[in-house]
């Protein structure tokens, strides 16, 4: 059966809605996924960052301090 174009769009949109509103919320509750999400949230980590500036400065600060305090170890 060939669906008309608007019907195709509606069908794919419905599949997306079912996955995003029905399946993925369940997946987010799986213990392994939930732990991962909680750890990221605690750290303030943005797993979708496409550039370093989207991550918190605390990720870079300890190494920056180590380099500033002991330059001989890094240069």
């Amino acid at each position, binding site marked *: 059966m060939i669906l008309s174009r608007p019907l195709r769009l509606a069908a794919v949109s419905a599949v997306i809605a079912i996955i995003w509103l029905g399946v993925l919320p369940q997946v987010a509750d799986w213990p392994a996924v939930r732990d991962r999400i909680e750890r990221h949230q605690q750290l303030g980590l*943005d797993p979708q960052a496409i550039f370093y500036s989207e991550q918190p400065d605390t990720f870079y600060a300890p190494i920056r301090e180590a380099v500033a305090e002991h330059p001989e170890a890094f240069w």
Partner: protein
Amino acid sequence: MSDTPQPTPPPQYRLSEDWLAVFLGLFVLCATAWGIWVTNPDLKQAFFADAVETSDNEMPPAELKLKNPLKLWVDKPQTWKSSPLDAFQGKKGSALPGILGAGLFLWVLFTAGCGIRGDSVLWFGLTFPVIYALSLVAYLLSTQSAIKHYNLEYALWALLVGLLISNTIGTPKWLKPGVRTEYYIKTGLVLLGAEVLFSKLLALGVPGICVAWIVTPIVLISTYLFGQYVLKIESKSLNMVISADMSVCGVSAAIATAAACKAKKEELSAAISMSLMFTVIMMVVMPQIITLLGISDAVGGAWMGGTIDATGAVAAAGEMLDNKAAMEVAATIKMIQNILIGVVSLCVAMYWVAYVEKSDVDTATTPGVGEIWKRFPKFVLGFLLASILASIFYNSGSAGVQLVGEVTSVTKGLRSWCFCLAFVAIGLDTNFAELFKTLKGGKPLILYICGQSLNLVLTLAMAYLMFDFTFPQARVEIMSREVINSQ
């Protein structure tokens, strides 16, 4: 990147899209800086104080706390789990003003840009909100918590949203004036320039430079040559975009390189889709391999930082190792690699206009300076200018560090929206057949796998050489700091 050809060639006096992107990008950066400057009278004094006394520019003094009223007006949808409406509720209040504010600002900015260039303001103005609404849908798909924490970035969903429309009902003709991939991407890239701060290059001393700036160009060039001479990939731009995406820093490098070498839209889409798929696998598998092989945290962190494409995925993978220092090393190596995209896009643009485009047109003559200048993608100059200015301010003292931080806290949100708009536009302008044609024969996949394998071997070797043999004290300092911090 090459968009669909315009029906009529632009008149000679017409402002090119490249120059327009430079103008708009720099205008946004300057206007944001000015807005912060006028709302913080203390800032002028702080700059003066920095000028007369030397201070540690990495450590801003606690007494200068800048106000940034613009931050409230630029935001993105937040993480949600079961209801997309939660995406409009941020930690510090509603994200709605920021989402609407960013949309309104970009609407005015891009419509004004169309007016300056002599394009149809009315049609662009009418269609932009639709593209923005589709970008919002893409963002909502990407911020569902399970999707977000496995690094399936908004670029992928924006592309999907566009493809979904173009391959079902077809992109309506009336929407075409808003489908302006290059316009959005180039403006976003000029904004990104302000985040490329050259002093970050020194963040991890010699080990950082060697892992991120020696291995990366070797892998980039080797992969490109492998694609050209061994796999004989027909499209040089596809070859270059995959090589840069895989060796430098994923999506952002792919966008910058694709624009610099004028790659086709479907080539950028193919490179990014492939990279994101491998990123998900690598961010889950690599920490396990590192633990299994007993690789030290510093070496493991550097290995992941240098090889996993996406910046966010690097930190997420580093976090899976027991020691937090591994994540910090991984994130820092990736940050140093991020800075490389300025140099890479400049070199690619120069190589393209001087050699690749020359060989496409006429193999016998070398183009003169005038011809090279004519072909050179001018937005790269805006990107570099923004980077140089931001780097100068950043290194001028603590006030400069804070000013750059506050400016980019606003512009990085706008930049993300620009890229999201661009990927929706790419999807709206592409059909699946074209996309699959790009991946035909499996050569791009082989290129990616071979290039990434070389990257994995060389980066691991360099990380060992640096942290275990040449600078073992660096590893000790990083690890001991972690012990101090955890006590």
